[in-house]
Structures are given as structure tokens and as C-alpha cells.
């Protein structure tokens, strides 16, 4: 019986950090992709965000989100698809977690993304429970994914990302 939910590849950032976490030559044999991330960046802040690039293309991204920090929730838009993660000033050894779900990633329609993410620190503000609806307005099949910090310049050591393929048949 074919495996429905299969790990494609995993990246772990080593000593010295890394500017990106990349997945190349993604096979087109699955139906959907799921990306699970644990990340902390070198941004001099408590929180940062992870930015995503498909096929090396830097244009045509949009994001509509709802998030909570404390008190009332907020909502905003962005021209990037973002997931929250921890920045370098957050509690030591604490990383933000996020999940991206990409259905029909090989299809010939624009690519929608569902993002659930959190960052946390032992403090009173500046961390997020962050949900987003993302869109890459590009009809190309996704063959590569690159993650990079939105504010910082590198992911800290021990940041990880794992890409899974999900098959509907």
C-alpha cells in the first residue's frame, strides 16, 4: 500500500547559523505538501518571522493574518507569506514552531497556503499566536522551497524544517 504521508527531506541548521533552509528538486508525485518548522533567528528582537520563496521567485506573494499577542486579537496583510518564529532576544533555548500546508502544489492554479505558527518567550509581550492565509499568484508547479528570516539575516543553530509529501491516492 503506498504511503500517504511521507517525509521528503529535513534540514537542521548547524553551528554558525544559516541564511536559508532550502528544499530543492521536490518531486511532483504527491498531492499536497506540509512543512513543519522550528526556528529562531538572529534578529535583535523577541520575535521574528519566516519568509518563504517558491522556485526562487521573489514576487507575487500575499498574506492575510489574524494574531494574538495579549489582549485583543489583531489582523493585518503583508506582501510576503509569513509565519512567526522566535528572535534572538527571546528566552534561551526557545524556538517558534510553524506549519505550512500547501494543497495541490503541482497544479496549474495559483498556490494557496495555510499557515499556523507560534512564538513564545517568558515575557509579557512581543510573541505571537499567528494564523495566516497565504497566496502565491503563480501557476507554476512548486519544485523548490526556500525559507529565510523576515527581519534577521540567519537562522540560529538547531533551527529545523521538515518537508512532508501527502498523497491522496
Amino acid at each position: 500500500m503506498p504511503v500517504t504521508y511521507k517525509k521528503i527531506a529535513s534540514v537542521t541548521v548547524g553551528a554558525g547559523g544559516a541564511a536559508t533552509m532550502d528544499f530543492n528538486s521536490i518531486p511532483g508525485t504527491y498531492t499536497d505538501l506540509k512543512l513543519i518548522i522550528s526556528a529562531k533567528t538572529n534578529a535583535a528582537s523577541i520575535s521574528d518571522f519566516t519568509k518563504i520563496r517558491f522556485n526562487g521567485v521573489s514576487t507575487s506573494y500575499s498574506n492575510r493574518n489574524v494574531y494574538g499577542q495579549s489582549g485583543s486579537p489583531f489582523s493585518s496583510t503583508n506582501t510576503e507569506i509569513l509565519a512567526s518564529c522566535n528572535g534572538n532576544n527571546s528566552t534561551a533555548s526557545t524556538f517558534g514552531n510553524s506549519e505550512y500546508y500547501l494543497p495541490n502544489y503541482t497544479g496549474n492554479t495559483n498556490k494557496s497556503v495555510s499557515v499556523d505558527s507560534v512564538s513564545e518567550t517568558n515575557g509579557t509581550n512581543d510573541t505571537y499566536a499567528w494564523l495566516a492565509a497565504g497566496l502565491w499568484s503563480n501557476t507554476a508547479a512548486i519544485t523548490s522551497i526556500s525559507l529565510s528570516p523576515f527581519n534577521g539575516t540567519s537562522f540560529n543553530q538547531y533551527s529545523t524544517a521538515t518537508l512532508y509529501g501527502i498523497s491522496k491516492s
Partner: protein
Amino acid sequence: MPATYENIATTTLGSSQANIDFTNIPGTFTDLVVIATLKRAAAGALDANIRVGNNSFDTGSNYSTTLLYGTGSAAGSTRFANQTSILADYYGSVNDTNEHIAIYQFMNYSNTTTNKTVIIRANRASSGVDAIVGLWRSTSAINQIRITLDLGGAQLMASGSTITLYGIKAA
């Protein structure tokens, strides 16, 4: 080694229709996950609705929904009690583009002890993002799920709309 995450069924519409149903869902899994990418056959946005049941769809006022939404300029929360369906999206609704994604997770769907809960994430980047919890006030096992844009059947999902049902096993 038994599979933990299995595809149970998938439907991709070849023509417009009112509902997508999954029936005779086996009770051998622990949880269910539904991935829906829906498109409306007509212009404008509508909310998808969910009905469930055991050998027949419950059409009574036995459902409720609580949701958190973001529109890009406003965030809020609302709830609906004693409804005839679970609201499957709000601002992350379905229109005539290919943007909609929703993930529905039915936990412990086949037990006969508790009422049934579903957690939903619905997204449409041009409109909004929703986090939803739905409740079916019945201790019956779920073996049928219906997703519809219109409980009356007048509004249709477009060709290409796809819903896939997965089962997850705890052991």
C-alpha cells in the same frame, strides 16, 4: 507496519454540484482530517457548511460554531448556537477563484460516549483567515460527512473543487 495516516476517499468535481458527501466512513481510525479546496460555481463568496451523521445526515438544530477571524484590517470572534450545520468558514470563504483552502480535523469521531468536535482552519488570502471550532451535539459515531455551500442545494460548488478525507490512527 500499519499505516498511521491513510487516504480514505477523495472527490474532485467534474461538474458543478451542491454537496460533497463521504458516507460509510470506517470507524477504525482515531481521528479524521479533511482537506478542502473549494470553488463556487457562481460569482461572489459563500460560506461552506458541514453536516455529519450516523447513517443519515443530522438536519436538526444540533450544531454550534465558535470562530476567530481576521480580515486583514479587523480581527474578531463570533459564535452561532443551535444551528442546523457547522459553519466551515467565515472570512476565509469560498468564491469563484482557486484560493480557498480549509482543513477540518474531527477528533475521536467514532466514539459513542462524547459529543463530536471539529477544529477548522479556513483561508482565502484575498478575504480572510478563520480558526473555528464546531460541535455536533450527539454521542453517535460519525460515519457520514457532508460539505455544502448551500443547505438548500441552490448554490453549487464548481468543477475542480476537491475534498480529500484522511484517517489517522493512534495505534
